[in-house]
Protein backbone atom coordinates (compact mmCIF):
# COMPACT_ATOMS: atom_id res chain seq x y z
CA UNK A 1 0.00 0.00 0.00
CA UNK A 2 1.22 3.45 -0.83
CA UNK A 3 1.39 5.40 2.41
CA UNK A 4 2.40 8.84 1.30
CA UNK A 5 2.30 12.15 3.11
CA UNK A 6 0.28 14.86 1.42
CA UNK A 7 0.83 18.54 2.14
CA UNK A 8 -1.73 20.70 0.33
CA UNK A 9 -1.60 18.50 -2.73
CA UNK A 10 2.16 17.92 -2.69
CA UNK A 11 3.01 14.28 -2.11
CA UNK A 12 6.02 13.01 -0.20
CA UNK A 13 7.11 9.38 -0.11
CA UNK A 14 9.21 9.69 3.04
CA UNK A 15 8.03 10.85 6.44
CA UNK A 16 11.51 11.92 7.42
CA UNK A 17 12.40 15.52 6.61
CA UNK A 18 16.04 16.48 6.87
CA UNK A 19 17.80 19.67 7.87
CA UNK A 20 21.13 20.35 6.22
CA UNK A 21 22.90 22.39 8.89
CA UNK A 22 25.73 21.49 11.25
CA UNK A 23 27.32 18.82 9.05
CA UNK A 24 31.11 18.58 9.02
CA UNK A 25 31.14 18.89 5.25
CA UNK A 26 28.91 18.69 2.22
CA UNK A 27 29.89 15.13 1.33
CA UNK A 28 28.78 13.87 4.73
CA UNK A 29 25.55 15.80 4.41
CA UNK A 30 24.83 14.40 0.96
CA UNK A 31 25.56 10.87 2.14
CA UNK A 32 23.23 11.35 5.11
CA UNK A 33 20.45 12.77 2.95
CA UNK A 34 20.75 9.78 0.63
CA UNK A 35 20.76 7.30 3.50
CA UNK A 36 17.72 8.93 5.10
CA UNK A 37 15.51 8.25 2.09
CA UNK A 38 14.03 11.73 2.46
CA UNK A 39 12.49 13.62 -0.40
CA UNK A 40 12.30 16.99 1.30
CA UNK A 41 15.29 18.77 2.80
CA UNK A 42 15.40 22.19 4.29
CA UNK A 43 18.11 24.72 3.50
CA UNK A 44 18.97 28.14 4.82
CA UNK A 45 19.84 31.31 2.92
CA UNK A 46 23.06 33.22 3.43
CA UNK A 47 24.96 35.97 1.71
CA UNK A 48 27.17 34.61 -1.00
CA UNK A 49 30.82 34.63 0.02
CA UNK A 50 33.30 34.02 -2.75
CA UNK A 51 35.90 32.80 -0.28
CA UNK A 52 33.51 30.08 0.82
CA UNK A 53 31.88 29.31 -2.50
CA UNK A 54 31.94 25.62 -1.61
CA UNK A 55 29.24 26.25 1.01
CA UNK A 56 26.73 26.73 -1.78
CA UNK A 57 24.45 23.72 -1.49
CA UNK A 58 22.43 24.30 -4.61
CA UNK A 59 24.66 22.30 -6.89
CA UNK A 60 25.24 19.27 -4.66
CA UNK A 61 21.56 19.04 -3.68
CA UNK A 62 20.36 19.49 -7.24
CA UNK A 63 22.18 16.31 -8.13
CA UNK A 64 20.06 14.28 -5.74
CA UNK A 65 17.15 12.90 -7.65
CA UNK A 66 13.66 13.25 -6.20
CA UNK A 67 14.88 15.43 -3.34
CA UNK A 68 13.02 18.68 -3.14
CA UNK A 69 14.31 21.79 -1.43
CA UNK A 70 12.39 23.61 1.24
CA UNK A 71 14.00 26.95 2.01
CA UNK A 72 13.74 28.04 5.61
CA UNK A 73 13.68 31.47 7.14
CA UNK A 74 16.31 30.86 9.80
CA UNK A 75 18.13 34.03 10.66
CA UNK A 76 14.93 36.05 10.46
CA UNK A 77 14.20 37.83 13.72
CA UNK A 78 10.71 38.99 12.85
CA UNK A 79 7.86 38.53 10.41
CA UNK A 80 9.12 41.09 7.93
CA UNK A 81 12.52 39.45 7.62
CA UNK A 82 10.99 36.01 7.39
CA UNK A 83 8.72 37.09 4.53
CA UNK A 84 11.71 38.53 2.68
CA UNK A 85 13.68 35.32 3.25
CA UNK A 86 10.75 33.28 1.99
CA UNK A 87 10.55 35.32 -1.21
CA UNK A 88 14.28 34.93 -1.81
CA UNK A 89 14.07 31.23 -1.08
CA UNK A 90 11.27 30.74 -3.57
CA UNK A 91 13.38 32.42 -6.26
CA UNK A 92 15.96 29.68 -5.82
CA UNK A 93 13.92 26.62 -4.95
CA UNK A 94 11.19 27.28 -7.52
CA UNK A 95 8.86 25.54 -5.11
CA UNK A 96 6.05 26.65 -2.82
CA UNK A 97 7.51 24.93 0.24
CA UNK A 98 8.71 27.22 2.98
CA UNK A 99 9.79 26.27 6.45
CA UNK A 100 8.76 29.29 8.47
CA UNK A 101 10.99 29.71 11.49
CA UNK A 102 11.49 32.87 13.48
CA UNK A 103 13.64 32.54 16.55
CA UNK A 104 14.86 35.90 17.83
CA UNK A 105 16.81 34.56 20.79
CA UNK A 106 20.07 32.99 19.60
CA UNK A 107 20.65 31.24 22.92
CA UNK A 108 17.73 28.86 22.74
CA UNK A 109 16.35 29.42 19.24
CA UNK A 110 12.79 29.02 20.51
CA UNK A 111 10.19 30.24 18.02
CA UNK A 112 8.41 33.57 18.34
CA UNK A 113 4.72 32.63 18.07
CA UNK A 114 3.47 36.14 17.34
CA UNK A 115 5.90 36.97 14.54
CA UNK A 116 5.45 33.47 13.13
CA UNK A 117 1.68 33.91 12.98
CA UNK A 118 1.95 37.31 11.34
CA UNK A 119 4.39 36.05 8.75
CA UNK A 120 2.19 33.05 8.01
CA UNK A 121 -0.81 35.29 7.36
CA UNK A 122 1.16 37.18 4.70
CA UNK A 123 2.84 34.13 3.16
CA UNK A 124 -0.51 32.35 2.87
CA UNK A 125 -1.76 35.25 0.74
CA UNK A 126 1.25 34.77 -1.52
CA UNK A 127 0.43 31.11 -2.09
CA UNK A 128 3.31 29.63 -0.14
CA UNK A 129 3.04 26.10 1.17
CA UNK A 130 3.85 26.92 4.78
CA UNK A 131 5.35 24.61 7.36
CA UNK A 132 5.71 26.70 10.52
CA UNK A 133 8.09 25.74 13.31
CA UNK A 134 6.20 26.51 16.51
CA UNK A 135 6.09 25.99 20.24
CA UNK A 136 3.98 22.95 21.11
CA UNK A 137 0.92 25.12 21.61
CA UNK A 138 -2.42 23.61 20.55
CA UNK A 139 -4.15 26.98 20.19
CA UNK A 140 -1.42 28.47 18.02
CA UNK A 141 -1.50 25.29 15.94
CA UNK A 142 -5.22 25.76 15.23
CA UNK A 143 -4.77 29.45 14.48
CA UNK A 144 -2.09 28.60 11.92
CA UNK A 145 -4.23 25.86 10.44
CA UNK A 146 -7.13 28.29 10.10
CA UNK A 147 -5.08 30.69 7.99
CA UNK A 148 -4.00 27.94 5.63
CA UNK A 149 -0.69 26.44 6.77
CA UNK A 150 0.03 23.10 5.11
CA UNK A 151 1.16 21.51 8.37
CA UNK A 152 2.22 22.54 11.82
CA UNK A 153 5.66 21.71 13.21
CA UNK A 154 5.69 21.81 17.00
CA UNK A 155 9.03 21.38 18.69
CA UNK A 156 9.77 18.25 20.69
CA UNK A 157 12.38 20.21 22.65
CA UNK A 158 14.55 23.22 21.94
CA UNK A 159 16.68 23.04 18.79
CA UNK A 160 19.83 21.01 19.21
CA UNK A 161 19.11 20.00 22.81
CA UNK A 162 18.38 16.38 22.03
CA UNK A 163 15.89 16.26 24.86
CA UNK A 164 13.46 14.24 22.79
CA UNK A 165 9.69 14.57 22.97
CA UNK A 166 9.56 16.75 26.09
CA UNK A 167 6.31 18.25 24.81
CA UNK A 168 4.60 14.92 24.10
CA UNK A 169 1.38 15.73 25.97
CA UNK A 170 0.87 19.01 24.14
CA UNK A 171 1.71 17.37 20.83
CA UNK A 172 -0.92 14.74 21.57
CA UNK A 173 -3.52 17.49 21.90
CA UNK A 174 -2.31 19.18 18.74
CA UNK A 175 -2.66 15.92 16.83
CA UNK A 176 -6.13 15.26 18.22
CA UNK A 177 -7.37 18.70 17.19
CA UNK A 178 -5.54 19.18 13.90
CA UNK A 179 -6.90 18.82 10.41
CA UNK A 180 -3.45 19.33 8.89
CA UNK A 181 -0.44 17.02 9.35
CA UNK A 182 1.59 17.46 12.53
CA UNK A 183 5.36 17.21 12.08
CA UNK A 184 7.69 17.23 15.06
CA UNK A 185 10.59 19.54 14.39
CA UNK A 186 13.56 19.95 16.71
CA UNK A 187 14.68 18.30 19.89
CA UNK A 188 14.95 14.70 18.75
CA UNK A 189 18.11 12.78 19.54
CA UNK A 190 17.40 9.13 18.88
CA UNK A 191 15.52 7.19 16.19
CA UNK A 192 13.35 5.75 18.96
CA UNK A 193 12.06 9.26 19.62
CA UNK A 194 11.19 9.69 15.96
CA UNK A 195 9.39 6.35 16.15
CA UNK A 196 7.56 7.56 19.25
CA UNK A 197 6.39 10.70 17.43
CA UNK A 198 4.95 8.66 14.58
CA UNK A 199 3.45 6.11 16.96
CA UNK A 200 1.56 9.01 18.55
CA UNK A 201 0.13 10.01 15.20
CA UNK A 202 2.58 12.62 13.98
CA UNK A 203 2.69 12.50 10.20
CA UNK A 204 6.43 13.09 9.93
CA UNK A 205 9.49 14.39 11.77
CA UNK A 206 12.13 16.88 10.75
CA UNK A 207 15.60 15.96 11.97
CA UNK A 208 18.89 17.78 11.69
CA UNK A 209 21.22 17.94 14.70
CA UNK A 210 20.64 14.33 15.74
CA UNK A 211 22.02 13.21 12.39
CA UNK A 212 24.59 15.93 11.71
CA UNK A 213 26.14 15.68 15.17
CA UNK A 214 26.21 11.89 15.37
CA UNK A 215 29.56 10.11 15.17
CA UNK A 216 28.45 8.62 11.89
CA UNK A 217 25.80 10.84 10.28
CA UNK A 218 25.19 8.57 7.33
CA UNK A 219 24.52 5.57 9.56
CA UNK A 220 22.39 7.66 11.90
CA UNK A 221 20.32 8.92 8.96
CA UNK A 222 19.64 5.32 7.98
CA UNK A 223 18.70 4.55 11.59
CA UNK A 224 16.23 7.45 11.62
CA UNK A 225 14.75 6.19 8.36
CA UNK A 226 14.06 2.86 10.03
CA UNK A 227 12.76 4.55 13.16
CA UNK A 228 10.29 6.65 11.22
CA UNK A 229 9.10 3.71 9.13
CA UNK A 230 8.73 1.59 12.23
CA UNK A 231 6.81 4.25 14.12
CA UNK A 232 4.46 4.82 11.21
CA UNK A 233 3.85 1.10 10.83
CA UNK A 234 3.10 0.87 14.57
CA UNK A 235 0.63 3.75 14.35
CA UNK A 236 -1.17 2.02 11.54
CA UNK A 237 -1.09 -1.31 13.32
CA UNK A 238 -2.74 0.17 16.42
CA UNK A 239 -0.89 0.11 19.71
CA UNK A 240 -2.25 -2.00 22.49
CA UNK A 241 -3.48 0.12 25.39
CA UNK A 242 -1.52 0.57 28.55
CA UNK A 243 -3.11 -1.39 31.35
CA UNK A 244 -5.12 0.25 34.06
CA UNK A 245 -5.94 -0.92 37.52
CA UNK A 246 -8.34 -3.81 37.75
CA UNK A 247 -12.06 -3.12 37.92
CA UNK A 248 -13.03 -1.50 41.22
CA UNK A 249 -14.90 -3.46 43.80
CA UNK A 250 -18.26 -1.72 43.82
CA UNK A 251 -20.00 -2.28 40.52
CA UNK A 252 -21.24 0.82 38.73
CA UNK A 253 -23.72 -0.94 36.48
CA UNK A 254 -25.91 -2.76 39.00
CA UNK A 255 -28.68 -0.26 38.28
CA UNK A 256 -29.11 -1.92 34.91
CA UNK A 257 -30.21 -5.22 36.40
CA UNK A 258 -32.85 -3.88 38.77
CA UNK A 259 -36.53 -4.83 38.83
CA UNK A 260 -38.75 -1.77 38.69
Amino acid at each position, binding site marked *: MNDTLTLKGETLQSRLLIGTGKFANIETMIAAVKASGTDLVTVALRRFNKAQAED*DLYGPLAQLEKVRLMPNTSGAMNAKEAIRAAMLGRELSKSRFIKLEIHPNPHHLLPDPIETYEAAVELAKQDFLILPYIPADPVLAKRLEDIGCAAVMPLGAAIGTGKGLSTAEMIRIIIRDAKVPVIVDAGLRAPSEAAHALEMGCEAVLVNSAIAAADNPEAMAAAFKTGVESGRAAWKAGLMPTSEAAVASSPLTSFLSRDD
Partner: protein
Amino acid sequence: MQIILNGESHLLEGDISLLALLETLEVEKKHTALMLNGAVIPATNWNEYTLKENDEVEMMVFVGGG
Protein backbone atom coordinates in the same frame (compact mmCIF):
# COMPACT_ATOMS: atom_id res chain seq x y z
CA MET B 1 30.50 54.25 -9.04
CA GLN B 2 30.11 52.65 -5.67
CA ILE B 3 27.45 50.18 -4.55
CA ILE B 4 27.02 48.16 -1.36
CA LEU B 5 27.40 44.49 -2.16
CA ASN B 6 26.57 42.04 0.62
CA GLY B 7 27.17 44.78 3.16
CA GLU B 8 30.52 45.92 1.80
CA SER B 9 31.36 48.71 -0.59
CA HIS B 10 32.11 47.63 -4.12
CA LEU B 11 33.39 49.70 -7.04
CA LEU B 12 31.84 49.42 -10.48
CA GLU B 13 33.05 50.80 -13.80
CA GLY B 14 30.32 52.27 -15.95
CA ASP B 15 26.60 51.47 -16.11
CA ILE B 16 26.01 47.79 -15.68
CA SER B 17 22.94 45.68 -15.05
CA LEU B 18 22.40 43.28 -12.17
CA LEU B 19 22.96 40.44 -14.61
CA ALA B 20 26.26 41.89 -15.75
CA LEU B 21 27.33 42.32 -12.12
CA LEU B 22 26.81 38.62 -11.46
CA GLU B 23 28.69 37.75 -14.60
CA THR B 24 31.71 39.89 -13.72
CA LEU B 25 31.76 38.23 -10.27
CA GLU B 26 31.64 34.81 -11.92
CA VAL B 27 28.76 33.76 -9.73
CA GLU B 28 26.58 30.74 -10.53
CA LYS B 29 23.48 32.64 -11.55
CA LYS B 30 21.14 29.68 -11.06
CA HIS B 31 22.33 29.34 -7.48
CA THR B 32 21.79 32.94 -6.55
CA ALA B 33 18.87 35.03 -5.42
CA LEU B 34 19.09 38.80 -5.46
CA MET B 35 17.75 41.51 -3.26
CA LEU B 36 18.07 45.12 -4.34
CA ASN B 37 17.52 47.80 -1.70
CA GLY B 38 15.47 45.35 0.33
CA ALA B 39 13.29 44.06 -2.51
CA VAL B 40 13.55 40.64 -4.08
CA ILE B 41 14.34 40.86 -7.80
CA PRO B 42 13.32 37.82 -9.86
CA ALA B 43 16.05 36.50 -12.19
CA THR B 44 13.96 37.40 -15.22
CA ASN B 45 14.33 41.10 -14.32
CA TRP B 46 18.07 41.16 -13.67
CA ASN B 47 18.95 42.38 -17.13
CA GLU B 48 16.44 45.21 -16.96
CA TYR B 49 17.87 46.97 -13.94
CA THR B 50 20.91 49.20 -14.25
CA LEU B 51 22.74 49.75 -11.00
CA LYS B 52 22.88 53.24 -9.50
CA GLU B 53 25.20 54.90 -7.02
CA ASN B 54 24.77 53.52 -3.47
CA ASP B 55 22.45 50.69 -4.47
CA GLU B 56 22.43 47.92 -1.89
CA VAL B 57 22.67 44.50 -3.44
CA GLU B 58 22.42 41.25 -1.53
CA MET B 59 23.41 38.00 -3.22
CA MET B 60 21.98 35.01 -1.42
CA VAL B 61 22.69 31.31 -1.82
CA PHE B 62 21.48 28.14 -0.14
CA VAL B 63 23.61 26.88 2.70
CA GLY B 64 23.14 24.19 5.29
CA GLY B 65 20.46 24.88 7.84
CA GLY B 66 17.75 23.11 9.78
